[in-house]
């Protein structure tokens, strides 16, 4: 099998008049050593020059705590700040309108542009300032109300939502904040009374309960709880006293959670958000109004 043709294929393949080759041969295919086009070389030099010039003009070389600034003074941060200022200026008229129009009139039918702006802006404000407690989908958590359902502690009309967001709840920063305080009955009621009133609340909310205890609990309820939660347990929005007969529970509606609430009370706090109305908040009136419209649109608005 020692065939010269197989051992030295390149010797066989190179022919008279062929261009110079690199000497590489694969399966009889030779690699010609043709010169590259000269403009290609110039293009390469041009890109080198461009690269150098760029690093002189623009921020480029990393230093210990920053990059070289470049002699043009270019800064993406400054451009973003400019863009923000530009959009703020563009939005100024519509923000002014939002502050002037009655809240109830900001609807898709009456003021579609205002409504659209409020919803878009409100969702961004909600994501920035509200979602930490109420969740990104506004579904809340234990102790933080779900804003999607049809149950409201302090009222679900657009104006009531606006007031709550402006002033907050049980905070010390805004004297106009909603305020109420449930009594902790641990020291006031006996263990039996507490157990019976818990069974009574389970009863009126339509859950499984001990009928005997619940019967006894009714008296305890009417004596201690009805002043805020009302005789039928439907709650009082003026006091932020929750409805005890429905399926929605801020701190849980089972026996253990109810007992803890009765014994030690609850004291949920929400900060004030309006900078204009309370001086304690972070949001402008237009922003508070936008986020109010947004929350009102989430499915529970009244």
């Amino acid at each position, binding site marked *: 099998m020692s065939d010269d043709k197989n051992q030295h294929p*390149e*010797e066989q393949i*190179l022919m008279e008049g*062929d261009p*110079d*080759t690199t*000497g590489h041969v694969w399966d009889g295919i030779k690699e010609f*050593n043709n*010169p*590259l*086009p*000269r*403009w*290609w*070389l110039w293009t390469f030099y041009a890109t080198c020059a461009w690269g150098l010039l760029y690093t002189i003009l623009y921020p480029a070389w990393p230093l210990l705590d920053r990059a070289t600034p470049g002699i043009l003074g270019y800064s993406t941060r400054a451009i973003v700040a400019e863009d923000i200022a530009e959009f703020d200026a563009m939005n100024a008229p519509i923000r002014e309108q939002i502050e002037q129009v009655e809240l109830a009139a900001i*609807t*898709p*039918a009456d003021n579609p542009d205002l409504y659209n702006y409020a919803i878009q802006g409100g969702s961004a404000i909600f994501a920035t300032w509200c979602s930490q407690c109420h*969740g*990104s*989908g506004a*579904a809340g958590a234990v102790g933080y109300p*779900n804003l*999607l*359902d*049809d*149950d409201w502690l302090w009222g679900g009309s657009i104006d009531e939502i606006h007031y709550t967001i402006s002033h907050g709840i049980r905070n010390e920063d805004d004297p106009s904040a909603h305020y109420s305080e449930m009594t902790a009955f641990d020291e006031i009621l006996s263990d039996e009374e507490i157990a019976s009133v818990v069974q009574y609340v389970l009863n009126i909310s*339509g859950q499984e309960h001990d009928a005997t205890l619940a019967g006894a609990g009714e008296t305890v309820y009417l004596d201690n709880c009805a002043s805020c939660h009302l005789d039928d347990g439907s709650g009082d929005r003026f006091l932020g006293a929750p*409805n005890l007969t*429905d*399926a*929605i529970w801020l701190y849980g509606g089972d026996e253990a959670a109810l007992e803890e609430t009765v014994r030690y009370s609850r004291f949920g706090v929400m900060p004030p958000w309006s900078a204009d109305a309370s001086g304690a908040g972070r949001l402008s009136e237009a922003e508070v109004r936008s986020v109010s419209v947004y929350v009102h*649109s989430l*499915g529970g608005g009244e």
Partner: protein
Amino acid sequence: MSATEEPTKLYAAREPVFPKRVSGTFRNLKWIVMIITLGIYYVTPWIRWDRGPALPDQAVLIDMANRRFFFFWIEIWPHEFYFVAGLLIMAGLGLFLFTSALGRVWCGYSCPQTVWTDLFFAVERWIEGDRNARLRLWKADWDTKKIRLRITKYLAWLLIAIATGGAWVFYFADAPTLLVDLVTGQAPFIAYSTIGILTATTFVFGGFMREQVCIYMCPWPRIQAAMMDEHTITVAYRDWRGEPRGKGKAREDLGDCIDCNACVNVCPVGIDIRDGQQLECITCALCIDACDDIMAKVGKERGLIDYLALTDEENERAGNEKVNIWKHIFRPRTILYTTLWSAIGVALVVLLFIRSEIDVTVAPVRNPQFVTMSDGAIRNTYDLRLRNMSHSDTTFHISLTSDEVLQVGLEGTELLTVDVPADTLHLQRVYVIARPGTDAADGDRTDFRFWVEDLQSDARTFQDTTFIGRDVQ
């Protein structure tokens, strides 16, 4: 081993090419293709098409701002982008078909680089004269005549280049309005910068880079090599008939080639086709025209240079009958490509005719998965994107069908209808509620179907989706 005495140069300057004027069958074909392709390119944006007052009256328009593509009576919305994908697949298969059957016919006739370079050659020839005159001018010292001719040529090229860059932007905006804006300086910066870039590339690629683009920049010649086989038609030289070449009257020992170099002189990429198939050859077939002309003059049969397949060489060298060109073209491979190409084309046309003028997409809001209402009902939320693609305002009625008992309600209205103006998309939040105690409320997942009915046209469409109950896993 090829040991070279002198070190090889790594880089070489471009050898300028001065193609000679030629006339003949393929040159005429190239003129026709050039007129048609350039005509389509420059004229299309100016064709008007009445679509009523609310919509643009430009026949072909890519409306980026409103995310619409208008093509005469066809209107493509973003969610129908599969039409564009289908067209791209057809373009790909079409290139496979033409390359496997006819080699680099795309490169030779219809590639924009070829068409515009050809146009620039024509202008150059018209201003500076034919091959010999241009060669002389190139070698001549810079005098007033040379400067005058060069400036005239560059100005003519520049006008074509500006028209080329300019025509491009008219596809993206109302052409008459944009033209006025461009002239008065009111057009957006992107229009000017696009025209500037395309003008520069047209001028440089058509006037100076020319065959360098095909040889060094374009990936297509490399890809094409993988699609060609021994039956693919390419431009080739019948060396068995032409060799040994030679000039002169005494032709007893010579072939048909009289070594007149006509084929070399007309070549736009500056090669000699008699050296065999080369990467540089774009199969423009101008050498066939040039050689046929000479063969006619010396009284020989045409086709010394001709469209040939690789198998023809073996066949004809053996002295067999010439194979009909159609036998090379019709073979399983090209028939398969044609079938696939047509199938996709037919499918697209059918899709175009059966598509509805209304459309809905349903995005379930799953943050949270469900909401418990105060009466214990379970509510799911869905974002419905309602598209009214007809040219008249209409009202959509939203309903659902399900094996379970579910109620539907719309955000912001007590009704189950929503007005959607002509040619718009309306985003509607929809609530679906399962009463307390129902299987849907207490269960895991319930499938149901949203129905959207166009109350004007009675057209209906649906989307299937899922309701999530409180017992979701």
